[in-house]
């Protein structure tokens, strides 16, 4: 048995879906389109498994977006694999007439239907009433009063689905298509349906007093005020940003530490060899690199869930729409963009809330320009190396100014890129704002935790696969070399060590450097040297570029290994060591101002992050956009680094 949940946006569909299925749910994909399919199951009163699918929210069966098209397709096409045996139409009772429009359209499709009357608690609170017995007899379908928040009526639904239900008689209208103008015909039909509903609803809805002084009415003037409104928004964004940036730090450190400990513990007990290496240097750090994102994802989605559930997100859109529309973005792009300053991975997942496909795509494409926290270690070390410790106007620290400029640069790049992409991305979908401003509500914690769980699970399973595969490839490239290159270079180091009586630590550091240099990654670094020489980089920096494709901060570690710094956690020692590196041709420092700036610009613009690519792949459901994005960002990075180096050297 298959049932589908259909209803207007915000009618409580997801809540009902959670009530019915609990933990037994998963997110998949409708074939051929980039629309999420939420499905799950429950056991009905007879103990039989019932499949449930949560259709995207829609106001009618005349689709205006890809999501609404899916609803129409699933419900009207009897051959569709998801075509249900029964539809539960969720109706928000506080706005019954409009909600019944969709119900009446589905009613005409000849599928058995149950009318779930939701939000009756709010109706009563407003001292109105709805006669659901009369409703039942007028429409001749089962009507069940539910409360999708508290679970009232859920058992009744589970009982009802065990009974054989016949499809209701068609009683409504057909879109005759007579005028040859489909918009016109659909409008005529819709208006007739409303007239019909007016008739049917006579005596059902009792509306003794219209109360306009709800909480929402009192709060909205503040939330949309030109000073308070932006003030509150700014404060909230600041908290969100703080949370992903700093609250997530200790669980991340914990995860990082545990994976490292586990790795070294395994390395101790396993017999040395390729299996041990693969596990301790490839797979475990790879999995660690996936798990490390969970705290940030969970925290961001907790906040987004609260913003959505309370109804505040619609106010964000209201406040920001005008500004963001200039750049081809959407009021809802604000949260992902700001979150991108902490990490692009959860930020890109957060674009889910943008309903316009085009606006969402543009937001996904530009979010990685925002200066994420993984760029910080790279910037810090480069700034320490090449920017002098000076004060401007006696107060502004030059190093701080450069760091700040890099953040601004990322933000501007995101906005300018949106302006450019806006010209190219055409989805044929006109961008509308028209949206309901839901009343303010308290969030439901169970809904929140289910959504956090779902987001985390999707990330781990979908993006995780790609992250793990790339980590293994990168590990292999850095640990193995062609033929006997590595063993020979290490033999040379051992010989030198014996001659010069190096300490054990010193020898190990040199051995690591030799290994990396003669590995495949090292060869590849030399291979790309001609391409990166105009940017001021040598093959050693080339190796760092390649390996930091895993994540930008890896740059620091790799540089430390290549230049045999040893203990990598100490920033000062890396700095001192790198400052001593000289350019073989000029005899000047390797990391001079030109190279430093060139590298900073490269890292500001380049898509040096496999996790972001993986998550863009997951969110756009294909390789097309991540590849375009990679090409676009790398080109921009290359060109700006080239210009910077050539001008400054």
């Amino acid at each position: 048995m298959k049932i589908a949940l259909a209803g207007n946006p915000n009618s409580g569909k997801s809540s009902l879906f959670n009530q019915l299925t609990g933990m037994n749910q998963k997110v998949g994909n409708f074939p051929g389109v980039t629309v999420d399919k939420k499905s799950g199951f429950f056991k009905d009163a007879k103990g039989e498994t019932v499949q449930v699918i949560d259709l995207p929210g829609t106001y009618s069966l005349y689709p205006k977006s890809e999501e609404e098209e899916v609803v129409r397709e699933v419900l009207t096409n009897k051959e569709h694999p998801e075509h249900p045996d029964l539809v539960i139409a969720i109706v928000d009772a506080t706005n019954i007439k409009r909600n019944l429009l969709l119900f009446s359209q589905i009613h005409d499709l000849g599928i058995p239907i149950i009318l779930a009357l939701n939000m009756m608690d709010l109706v009563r609170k407003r001292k109105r009433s709805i006669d659901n017995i009369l409703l039942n007899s007028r429409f001749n379908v089962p009507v069940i009063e539910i409360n999708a928040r508290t679970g009232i009526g859920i058992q009744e639904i589970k009982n009802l689905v065990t009974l054989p239900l016949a499809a209701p008689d068609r009683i409504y209208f057909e879109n005759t298509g007579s005028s040859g103008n489909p918009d016109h015909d659909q409008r005529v039909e819709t208006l007739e349906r409303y007239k019909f509903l007016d008739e049917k609803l006579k005596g059902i809805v009792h509306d003794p007093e219209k109360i306009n002084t709800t909480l929402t009415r009192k709060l909205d003037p503040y939330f949309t005020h030109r000073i308070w409104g932006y003030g509150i928004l700014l404060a909230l964004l600041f908290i969100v940003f703080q949370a992903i940036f700093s609250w997530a730090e200790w669980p991340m450190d914990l995860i990082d530490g545990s994976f490292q400990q586990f790795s070294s513990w395994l390395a101790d007990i396993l017999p040395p060899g390729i299996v041990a290496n693969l596990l301790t240097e490839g797979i475990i750090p790879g999995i660690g690199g996936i798990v490390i994102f969970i705290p940030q994802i969970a925290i961001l989605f907790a906040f987004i869930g609260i913003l959505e559930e309370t109804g505040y997100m619609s106010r964000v859109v209201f406040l920001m729409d005008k500004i963001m529309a200039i750049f081809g973005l959407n009021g809802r792009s604000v949260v992902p963009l700001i979150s991108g300053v902490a990490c692009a991975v959860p930020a890109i997942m957060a674009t889910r809330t943008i309903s316009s496909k085009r606006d969402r795509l543009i937001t996904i494409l530009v979010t990685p320009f925002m200066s994420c926290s993984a760029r910080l270690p790279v910037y810090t070390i480069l700034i320490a190396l090449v920017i002098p410790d000076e004060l401007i106007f006696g107060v502004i620290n030059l190093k701080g100014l450069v760091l700040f400029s890099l953040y601004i640069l990322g933000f501007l790049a995101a906005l300018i890129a949106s302006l450019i992409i806006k010209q190219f991305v055409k989805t044929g979908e006109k961008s509308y704002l028209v949206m309901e401003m839901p009343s303010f509500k308290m969030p439901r914690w169970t809904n929140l935790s289910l959504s956090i769980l779902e987001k985390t699970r999707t990330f781990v399973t979908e993006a995780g696969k790609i992250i793990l595969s790339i980590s293994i490839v990168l590990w292999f490239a850095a640990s193995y070399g062609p033929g006997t290159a590595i063993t020979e270079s290490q033999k040379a180091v051992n010989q030198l060590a014996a001659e010069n009586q190096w300490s054990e630590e010193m020898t190990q550091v040199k051995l690591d450097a030799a290994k990396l240099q003669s590995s495949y990654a090292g060869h590849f670094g030399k291979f790309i040297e001609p391409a990166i020489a105009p940017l001021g980089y040598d093959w050693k920096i080339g190796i760092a570029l390649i390996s930091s494709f895993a994540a930008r901060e890896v740059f620091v570690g790799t540089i430390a290994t290549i230049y045999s710094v040893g203990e990598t956690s100490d920033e000062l020692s890396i700095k001192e060591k790198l400052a001593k590196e000289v350019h073989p041709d000029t005899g000047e420092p390797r990391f001079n101002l030109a190279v430093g700036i060139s590298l900073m610009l490269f890292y500001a613009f380049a898509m040096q992050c496999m996790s972001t690519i993986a998550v863009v792949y997951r969110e756009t459901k294909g390789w097309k956009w991540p590849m375009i994005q990679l090409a676009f960002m790398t080109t921009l990075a290359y060109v700006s680094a080239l210009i910077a180096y050539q001008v400054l050297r």
Partner: protein
Amino acid sequence: MNASELKIGESREIIGFSDDVLSLKLIEMGCLPGNQISLNYIAPLGDPVCVHVEGYDLSLRKSEAASIIIQ
């Protein structure tokens, strides 16, 4: 007159629409000819606006509001 010309708190009857595609969406969302529409508040930058129809609030861009013809 159209809905973008409403003053805050002013309420008028919807009599029609000037945009074919948008009108269907608005009708489906409950903006029906014959209903009263009133202006709740305007966003700080003058756009979008928030109106009240049929017992609930709707936010729309000024250009979208302009397609709602009122009495």
